[in-house]
């Protein structure tokens, strides 16, 4: 009951946030200097065509009316059309979004698995040579921006050591699987097409590693310090006293409470993965939403910019609420405090 009322409050707040964000980004997109319609149709388009399109887009109405029309469209799944490519934005998004999602999910999995392993490992070997070495390595890892890592990967794997592809989602000549979810690896797995699965998987590796590298090391450090903090809690001594094997203590009793700070960070990082995908997708020529959004921003496509930002905003809000639920399940104390506090 208490958890659900807490979530309800979170949800209402999130809806408000999305609305605020939509107003903000809509205004930003509409104050772009220059006539977007003229820009879209080209300098030689006849004046009456320009006028007709301006009317269709309600560009001559007051801003709040334009916003009204836009929101009405968004609720029926219609974001208008791109001024640059003249394609329907909702179709484009349906096409590009799964690619970004696939990369982000894969990066996230990499981040969770390796940061937990690395964090546990360094906590077990606290203050030894290995721990110090990994600490110094992680300082470097955190300082490497995703796009710098991407450039290094393209240089290394694209030209010198060509074991992994650095361009796009599939090798040329490979026919993509029939679209079910849009995630190539998942689709090909469902259809049992292992050639495509292997190829799509290989294409995923480098972009995802570049994207998750910095977060991976950061999470590992948080997990480590949180485990080290918990190591000397009484419940650990008690379990050791009961004769529970050290491995079980480590992974079952110590890791779970130590993951709470990591989980809340991970939710934030998952949303940051989408932000950083912007540059990584450009470099790896990954046909995703972020590359689409960047191109739209660079060509000042006032219909696409708010669409992409709003889609990302909704996505991040959903992630944040999910993280709140997971944290509440991991830590009974938080569940209790919500019942008292809110």
């Amino acid at each position, binding site marked *: 009951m208490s958890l659900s009322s807490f979530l309800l409050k979170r949800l209402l*707040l999130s809806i*408000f*946030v*999305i609305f*605020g*964000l939509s107003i*903000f*980004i809509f205004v*930003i*997109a509409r*104050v*772009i*200097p220059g006539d977007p319609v003229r820009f879209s149709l080209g300098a030689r388009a006849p004046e009456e065509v320009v006028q007709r399109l301006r009317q269709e887009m309600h560009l001559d109405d007051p801003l709040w009316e334009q916003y009204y029309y836009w929101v009405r469209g968004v609720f029926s799944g219609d974001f208008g059309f791109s001024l640059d490519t003249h394609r329907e934005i909702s179709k484009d998004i349906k096409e590009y979004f799964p690619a970004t999602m696939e990369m982000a999910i894969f990066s996230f999995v990499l981040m969770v698995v390796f940061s937990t392993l690395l964090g546990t490992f360094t906590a077990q070997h606290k203050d030894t040579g290995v721990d110090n070495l990994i600490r*110094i390595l992680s*300082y*470097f890892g*955190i*300082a*490497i*921006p995703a*796009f*710098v890592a991407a*450039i*290094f990967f*393209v*240089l290394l794997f*694209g*030209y*010198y050591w060509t074991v992994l592809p650095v361009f796009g989602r599939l090798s040329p000549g490979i026919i993509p699987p029939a679209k079910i979810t849009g995630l190539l690896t998942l689709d090909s797995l469902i259809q049992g097409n292992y050639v495509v699965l292997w190829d799509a998987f290989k294409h995923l590796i480098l972009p995802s590693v570049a994207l998750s590298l910095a977060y991976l090391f950061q999470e590992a450090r948080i997990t480590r310090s949180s485990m080290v903090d918990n190591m000397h809690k009484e419940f650990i001594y008690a379990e050791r006293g009961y004769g529970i094997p050290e491995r079980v203590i480590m992974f079952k009793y110590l890791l779970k409470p130590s993951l709470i700070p990591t989980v809340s960070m991970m939710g934030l990082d998952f*949303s*940051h993965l*989408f*932000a*950083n995908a*912007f*540059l990584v997708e*450009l*470099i790896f020529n990954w046909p995703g939403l972020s590359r689409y*959004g*960047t191109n739209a*921003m*660079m060509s*000042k496509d006032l219909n696409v*910019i708010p669409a992409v*930002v709003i889609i*990302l*905003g909704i996505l*991040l*809000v959903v992630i944040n609420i999910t993280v709140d639920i997971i944290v509440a399940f991991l830590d009974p104390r938080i569940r209790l405090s919500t019942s008292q506090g809110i």
Partner: protein
Amino acid sequence: MMSLNQPNNSIAIGLAKPKSIFWLSLRKNWYKFSRNRLSIVGLMIVAVITITAIFAPWIVPYPEHASAFVDFGNAGQPPSLQYFCGTDVIGRDIFSRMIFAFRGALIMAVVVLVIAVPLGVFLGLIAGYFHKTWIDNLIMRITDIFLSIPTLILALAIAVVLKPNLMNAMIAISFGWWSWYTRVAYGMASSVKNEYFVIEADLMGASKFHIIFREILPNCLSPIFTKMALDVGWVILIGASLSFIGLGEQPPTPALGQMVSDGAKYLPSFWWMAVFPALAIVLAILGFNLMGDGLRDMLETGAG
């Protein structure tokens, strides 16, 4: 180590004149900071970057290469003793341009923090002081909106509206940055305002201005400074990302991200054009992160 250190200081403070307490605390803080060798490494990297950036025109081998300079005879030279990091496609020394690019990166970090921190802290203090009133609600809900979208996307969206140059990139990044300080200051202020010394100041008839800026603010400074120290590296990162896609300092003035993206076009054969500026970005972020961690340890244990 603290117990060894503590008695000495208390005796010294007892005997010393008031003026030297400042120096003692400085020495104590320096001691804390220098306990971690990595912080010293970070401080050294930051010092080298800052000093070379400030004195760039007198230090670098080819100061004229930092602007519109063309020397096709030496275009695409690999790294050598003459050109430490090679030359770019129109024959400019990459090393000299990197040092000059640090100027833009540092100016950006300073300006973004100078805009974002006072604005964010001010709003956070006001919201915290008027905790649970409509002012609190108004400010913090607007803050939530800005926190809901990653800084890079927000900065991108704003930067494309403005003309691409360094100043506008800084404005765009500041737009995405203030909200984090609002949240930190808000959290501190809303708890500090219930402390007895604040209530007492209120009873004595102190003005709201006095209470917010003289009573509450000084008690919020430690986490704010900590966050600032840790943020410098991230501002440089976002700035480099923006300039990577052409939304920053415009050519011929060098910027690190712009140099990486220009160099990436000539990748396998002219690798030095992208690799050295990329390493420069990593070095700058690494230095500021290490130093920031050291400062955080110093400030946090100092407060407790």
